[in-house]
């Protein structure tokens, strides 16, 4: 059982944190060092008095050793700590999460909220700076004001003005004041459109993902052969660019569903252990639609949680389906070690990789990835690549050493990582930068 197997890892982590020798801890709790070694490598199950004794020696709550903490909550807490220049005991975040799950959840949810608000501010700032409609309206207002001011100051100036000029400047002021009134009204209407502002405050990708998340990333209406993707788009009620993106997602979903009908696909998933390569072979289809289909399995049907991410050739995330233990930042630079990005350097080559995320309670995941042409190749034109990756719980936990990946450099403790692009901001961690 993975949870039980990780108890040993947590014990080892806490012992090393405290700088205690294995032999010393073993002696204190009346077991042999070799037995503690087996426990720490998850080769012996423990419980009862022994785990209570170990928790006491390691100065942690028993629950921290037995249950650990929610990885997603921990990621957010560490991200929140790293985002401010305040000295925080990041190495004790797991202890905090285990001991006070309510408060930790609050920190994590506030960090998420701040992230969302910062993204809204970024989008709105971009809008203020680059929105052609806003820029045009402001230019119109300033031009009208400038013309009125210039004409009016001529009229009120000390020098004599003949009647023809007076009439001309009066007429100009009148015309410009009408223009100013109209352009001001248009500007106010534009700025006072709260719905539109909220709608555009998150990116179209995120609007689509939020909608898909609300239906568990499973579009039941598109599972029948005569399904109409347009109905899904209309019912979602998104606007602007998000509608177009959702239409593309729904069309692809419908064609994937025809290629891999749900009932047969679910049966095959169970017999192949959700292995996309085996499924692709069984259905005689490419691996990419199989990976998408795995991420579309209905929630609540006893399937494992399967995350999905796609990116373009520049590594920009174009779709993210998060699952517990798997989070990848859309902005700010994801860890380049994810096989999603590695696949871009090996197009058309399926990749299978065990990965482990850092932390006192390391999360092991199984990833499959493949990059392939997004659209059919054209003569002498550059290939348009898109990489797709799915993430499954690593239940088998193969004996090989998993690849250590992070969320992003800022909160990653791997100091010697050659892929590091910026220093980590973790308390007590050193970091090298290329």
């Amino acid at each position: 059982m993975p949870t039980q197997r990780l108890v040993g890892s947590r014990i080892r982590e806490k012992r090393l944190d405290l700088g205690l020798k294995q032999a010393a801890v073993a002696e204190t709790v009346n077991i042999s060092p070799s037995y503690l070694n087996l426990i720490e490598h998850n080769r012996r199950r423990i419980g009862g008095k022994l785990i209570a004794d170990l928790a006491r020696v390691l100065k942690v709550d028993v629950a921290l050793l037995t249950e650990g903490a929610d990885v997603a909550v921990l990621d957010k807490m560490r991200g929140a700590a790293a985002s401010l220049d305040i000295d925080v005991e990041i190495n004790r975040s797991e202890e905090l999460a285990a001991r006070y799950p309510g408060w930790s959840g609050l920190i994590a949810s506030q960090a998420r909220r701040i992230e969302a608000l910062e993204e809204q501010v970024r989008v709105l700032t971009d809008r203020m700076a680059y929105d052609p409609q806003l820029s045009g309206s402001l230019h119109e207002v300033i031009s009208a004001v400038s013309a009125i001011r210039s004409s009016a100051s001529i009229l009120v100036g000390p020098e004599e003005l003949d009647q023809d000029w007076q009439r001309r400047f009066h007429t100009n002021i009148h015309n410009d004041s009408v223009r100013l009134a109209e352009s001001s009204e248009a500007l106010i209407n534009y700025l006072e459109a709260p719905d539109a502002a909220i709608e555009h405050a998150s990116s179209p990708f995120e609007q689509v993902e939020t909608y898909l998340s609300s239906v568990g990333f499973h579009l039941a209406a598109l599972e029948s052969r005569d399904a109409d993707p347009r109905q899904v788009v209309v019912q979602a009620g998104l606007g602007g660019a998000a509608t177009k993106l959702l239409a593309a997602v729904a069309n692809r979903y419908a064609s994937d569903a025809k290629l891999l009908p749900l009932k047969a696909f679910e049966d095959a998933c169970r017999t192949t252990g959700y292995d996309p390569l085996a499924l692709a072979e069984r259905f005689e289809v490419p691996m990419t639609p199989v990976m998408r289909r795995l991420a579309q399995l209905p929630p609540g049907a006893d399937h494992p949680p399967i995350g999905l991410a796609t990116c373009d050739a520049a590594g920009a995330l174009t779709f993210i389906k998060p699952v517990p233990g798997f989070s990848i930042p859309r902005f700010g630079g994801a860890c380049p070690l994810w096989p999603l990005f590695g696949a871009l350097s090996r197009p058309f080559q399926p990749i299978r990789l065990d990965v482990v995320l850092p932390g006192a309670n390391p999360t092991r995941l199984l990833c499959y990835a493949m990059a392939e042409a997004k659209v059919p190749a054209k003569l002498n034109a550059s290939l348009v690549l898109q990489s797709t990756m799915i993430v499954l719980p690593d239940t088998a936990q193969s004996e090989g050493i998993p690849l250590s990946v992070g969320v992003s450099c800022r909160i990653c403790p791997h100091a010697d990582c050659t892929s590091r692009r910026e220093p980590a901001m973790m308390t007590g961690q050193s970091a090298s930068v290329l």
Partner: protein
Amino acid sequence: MGKRVLLIEDEPNIIEALSFILSRDGWTVHTHEDGATAMEKVIALPPDVIILDVMLPGRSGFDILRDLRGHEVTKAIPVMMLTARGQEKDRDLAIRLGANHFMTKPFSNSDVRDYVRNLMEA
């Protein structure tokens, strides 16, 4: 004939007001409203001072300024930028490209008149 000022601006009422105050100050005022053909107009004249708007139809005032400073006939003509874009980055760009003065809208007539005089005397 007085000194020539070329006003490159697309707002008719601003053109009329500035033309009036500069004419009254002794300048021969020429006007041009299209960014795309502004360089041809400058070379054909050429004026003693240029007042140049930034947001013009056809071509940006910044692009015109860059060309002015790169052309043998026009590179030494004093240029005053007159724009609704008053951000620091716009001002920096104008000065970097070789503008002699940068003024934001809405402007004061007397400021425009004084700066144009100064540019001529500098």
